């Protein structure tokens, strides 16, 4: 578990994965905070971004456009983006607005962390 790097948006870094937590209402302001935080993490060398939606209630369309911007930036830096713990309604919204095509969805943060982390030799053998 890494140390927090921003007081406005909860986040931390695990290895080369930056984890950012979306707030209850994801709108322009909170979206921009996430965007700033993601940029910071990419600049600091993260190769994977996990945005955790476990606290998110409503996501508005402005926030979605900002999330698409984050995906663009990540793609340019050859980083991957994972959305974790997204509720069904928000998944539906992301589908409608075409986000799903550009991100990987994870059930929760733990699953997100394992998606792009190379398995240990023990784990590889157990499969």
């Amino acid at each position, binding site marked *: 578990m890494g140390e927090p790097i921003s007081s406005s948006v909860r986040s931390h870094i695990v290895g080369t994965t930056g984890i950012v937590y979306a707030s209850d*209402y994801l*709108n322009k302001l909170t979206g921009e905070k996430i965007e700033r935080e993601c940029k910071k993490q990419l600049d600091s060398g993260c190769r994977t971004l996990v945005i955790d939606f476990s606290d998110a209630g*409503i*996501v*508005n*369309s*402005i926030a*979605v*456009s900002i999330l*698409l*911007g984050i995906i*663009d930036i990540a793609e340019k830096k050859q980083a991957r983006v994972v959305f974790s713990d997204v509720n*069904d*309604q928000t998944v*539906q*919204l992301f*589908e*409608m*607005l*075409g*986000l799903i095509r550009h991100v990987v969805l994870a059930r929760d943060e733990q699953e997100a962390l394992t998606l792009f982390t190379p398995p240990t030799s023990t784990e590889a053998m157990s499969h």
Partner: protein
Amino acid sequence: MNKHGETRVLGRVRRDEFIGRADELRRVVSHGQASSHGDRGKGLLVLLAPLSGVSELLRQAYDEIFLQQSDVVPVYFALPQTETTAVSAAIEFLNAFLVQYVACRRNEPELAHTSLTLTDVVQLAPPSDADWIEELVEAYNRERFSEDDRALVRFCLSAPSRVPSHGATPFVMFDAVQLSAYSHDTVPLASEIIRALTLSDQAFVFAGLRREVADTFASAGINARSLEVIHLQPLLEADAGKLIESVSRRLNVGIKDETRDLLAQQLEGSPLFINALLQSARDKHTVLDSYLACERLYVDEIMGGQLSRYFASALERVASDPGTRRAIVRLLCESTTTSAVAGRRASFETWEKRLELDAVEVEKVLRRLHIQEFVNWDGDTINAEGGPEAWRDYLQSRFRLDALREPRALVVAELMSAALKRAPENVARNYRLGASLHMREVVSRFNSQRVPASLFDYSEFAELYKGVDPNEVAAALDVDKELIKLPQVFHTTSGASFSPEMRQFTPDDSCIVAHAFEGATYTDANEVVWLVAKIDSKLEADADLTALWLERLEALADRRALVRRQLWLIANEGFNAEASSLIRERAAFASSQQQFELLSARLSEGEGSLPHGDEGNEFVLVFPMGSDSELLAATTVEQIARRAQFTPEAINQIKTAIVEACINASEHSLSPDRKIYQRFRVEDDKLVVTIASRGVVPSNLEGRNGAGSDESHEATSGPSGDLSNEYGGAAEQRRGWGLKLIQTLMDEVEFERVDEGTSLRMTKYLRKST
């Protein structure tokens, strides 16, 4: 005090017999009362249509204020028809003012209509008023021997303003209906009256013919716009009927319901004519129990009774020379006949030539006829179709007697024959007119409301509901999802107003033209004209009749260059299959009387009201823009939707849609009050949410206003529903998804018509969770 225990001063009828003018009376009286509360200097104009009757209204107001015995003294003065000089009329006014003032101050009603000399008035004046009245009379005596008529007129008319401030305040009610009788005078009486009333700081009423008053104020150089106005029209038919009942009871004239209705309609709600005819019936001991009795009396009145005297006197005021009057009668008769046939109007030059007068004199004649509303003169052409039916009968009788020299007996017989033939036709026409007014009233109530489309498609309606119990039909329509949005109608008129030829097809007003706007904005593209006709057919209208009417309406629209049009035919029993097919080909609407009545029942009354008045299930909230207030709206609607048993998924969709609508309102409206107005209405099977804001209509929405959700979907999303297909490019293109998202999340989305800003209505149908 009269035999009914009621005190009357100038009023000629009992208060309870004074019918149809309660609102006007209240306004005149309260205007007078206001003058005692320091609210002075306010004028009240009573603009009346000819024959509407204003004298009794002012006399009733006089009595009410007199009997209150407050510090306001009413003064009623009607310009006499016989005193045709300005000086004599002004002196008469001074006398009336002083007599009525003293009568009121002494609280002696009978004194108010007693003939008193000025010396009598001085002697009767109460001590508190004696000094100024005596001084006023002395000053008048000095003034009247001067050679300056205008100064004398001015002195007399300004007498009320000479009451000292410690005295009771006069409230002058000036009945100037006969003003045109003074137009020949060297002293401009009209201007002097206006001047005296408006220069005073006392409240007043000035009543006159509506077409004359505006001219009078303009020629006096006084701006009438600041004055309060009452528009007095002839009595409504129901009130006219009540008046006939009341007067006939008072005069002990026998009458039946049928003849009461005939007279109410034939005398066109004129209190003057009603009183004159019933007075004549009493004098002749005539029982008005049949059309024959009524028309016989009517013809007597036209040939030589009060109605004849009224019109003769009106004509004398128009032209003093008998030869000119005969020429006018001839010209009016001929013009009327010509107008009725071909819709032609006479030119000024025609009148000049036919009257053999110079242009100035012809102008005077036309102006006086125009003021009396016997003709409509726009400065160039003259339309002689004005005036009541009795006027036209009078003209015809005079023309035949004086110009054609026909025997009087023949004229009387034929006039009576025509009146008798006309009576049942007129009554029937009136009933039809009542129905057509209903048609106009229904169309006027369209007001952008949504109604089942089947109400405008007879063949579909018949297939679905023919033979079905009316209650079941109404219930089925309640849940009908196929709706059409009606336009907002801003003007309706008869088809004949647009095309006089329509009169030959529709003797009544059963063809109407309604100008309207579709959608939410007033633009050329949204303007549409509905042409509606009611077809007279006992059975289902056939193809021939239907085609004929479609062609008539198309022709009317073509002639008047009505580009965007919607035809709508209504036939009592609907349309047969062949006719329905024709209607479909022309993209017209068709309804039976039953559909029309169902439509009428479904339309709400006024702008902005709810279709079913079901306000018990409506929640209204106003939030400031910004500060994430859209979340409050979302939370609120969550509670409402949960109570209405929407599924969690649907609730989330509604919440998201509301958030988007609020964001749109905040971002794009340039709202002056920075508020979002929200309305949540729960109906049986749906939740209707309206999000409105003041300000400008965002340019990106202008083209979409009024569009339904289906149409919008097609335009904004691909088959997969993925909205990013066309907008998923560069970052700056990613904004502006709000409306599309709303359209995806909700079942129906439309912009309601508002004068300013936007009002987005979103509907979500209930699919209860299992």
